[in-house]
């Protein structure tokens, strides 16, 4: 059974049709890269998966469980959505760390709140220990007590990745994780994502880093004007069946 099944997702903002009949599946441990020019709908798709936008039509299943169906109003209730979000993690382009908390507190805050609210029995100590392990994995062992403004963009983004992983999502999503970074800082972030891929973390990555997408992905989706224009293994999409729109897009990206 696929870990994620997306069926016919559609989304409009007012009169503008942003997503049209988007369908795909994802197997556990796969990495899916979504590429495409600005305005092609890739970020909106990611935001729909994380319920930051509610699709107008279509359905979303995780491990066979119905998370969302446009015809089923129960799946739109706020409390339901809050829980279902936890299947997905999202790493933002602009990190969106909480500035008043240290790196470690950023990673542990939501888990601590959840343990307290739902009496999961997790001790604060255990949550903190786990948070530390995640930050060590991100190569930030000496940055745990720093506040976001004391960190470089690349370090902030790695804290954000640790923060998303702390909630143990089934699928970790990245929205152009290196677009806001200085070129010399992207390497460390991409390496962390590559390590996660090697450890079979299921991921969906919206990116402009074509070489990285080719290297890390099991599958690639090329989006154009709100539809899936091409889909397949990196080899297939880039080399075997490059459609004209993709060639044009790659030309612009590479320049």
């Amino acid at each position, binding site marked *: 059974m696929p870990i994620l099944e997306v069926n016919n997702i559609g989304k409009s903002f007012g009169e503008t049709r942003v997503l049209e009949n988007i369908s795909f599946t994802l197997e556990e441990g796969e990495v899916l890269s979504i590429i495409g020019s600005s305005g092609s709908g890739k970020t909106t798709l990611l935001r729909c998966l994380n319920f930051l936008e509610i699709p107008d039509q279509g359905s979303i299943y995780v491990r066979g469980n119905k998370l969302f169906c446009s015809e089923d109003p129960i799946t739109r209730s706020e409390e339901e959505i809050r829980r279902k979000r936890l299947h997905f*993690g999202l790493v933002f382009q602009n990190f969106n760390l909480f500035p008043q908390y240290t790196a470690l507190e950023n990673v542990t805050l939501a888990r601590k709140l959840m343990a307290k609210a739902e009496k999961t029995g997790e001790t604060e100590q255990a949550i903190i220990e786990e948070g530390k392990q995640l930050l060590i994995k991100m190569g930030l062992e000496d940055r745990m007590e720093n506040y976001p403004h004391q960190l470089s963009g690349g370090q902030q983004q790695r804290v954000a990745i640790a923060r998303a992983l702390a909630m143990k999502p089934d699928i970790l999503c990245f929205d152009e994780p290196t677009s806001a970074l200085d070129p010399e800082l992207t390497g460390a972030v991409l390496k962390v994502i590559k390590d996660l891929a090697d450890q079979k973390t299921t991921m969906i990555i919206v990116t402009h880093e074509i070489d990285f997408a080719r290297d890390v992905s099991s599958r690639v989706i090329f989006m154009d004007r709100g539809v899936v224009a091409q889909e397949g293994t990196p080899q297939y999409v880039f080399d075997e069946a490059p459609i004209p729109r993709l060639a044009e897009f790659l030309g612009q990206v590479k320049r």
Partner: protein
Amino acid sequence: MSASVIINRLLECSWLNIEIFFVTLLLGLPLGLIIAFGSMSKFAPLRAFTQTVVWIIRGTPLMLQVIIVYYGPGLMFGMKLMPRMDAALLAFVINYACYFSEIFRGGIQSMPVGQREAGEVLGMTKRQIFFKVTLLQVIKRIVPPMGNEFITLVKDTSLARIIANKEIIMMAQEYAASNGLIWPLFSTAVFFLIASGLLTLLLNYAEKKLSYFN
């Protein structure tokens, strides 16, 4: 009459100014936050109502509002006069809550939407996001404009004398009228300067305390 007696009497009356100051903050700040949520409500009639109230309160003099709160209920509905101090406090709380609400609203609306979204994708509830993520950042942003309001409030407290609450300036005016002494009135400036000076130090301290994050 010796100067020390006069000064003591003035200081006694200044407790009234101090009381108005603290009660206005204590009740006006939470009420201001509630009004702020009203003026940001997605429910249009509530939003329109709140904004109208804020317009009326901010658009008329506080001195007039104190008079209306004190005499209005009696003149319009034949109700019994409430104690002078209660009337002054009520008018001050409502007036300042409206100003505070606009500062809260500005602070909340200036928050980048990404902060809320980051909380949402981590499965936090709206309440948790407001209290654990947004609030402290909003407070940090609104310390300077709030400081302005606090210092204005220090001086506005003397408006309570319009309905014969004997605060420090009213007392000093009585010395001028009955004893022909003008210096007590002038000397009240020292009281206001000390109060606003202490407040400035406190606000600077708060700003410094909150400077550990950006």
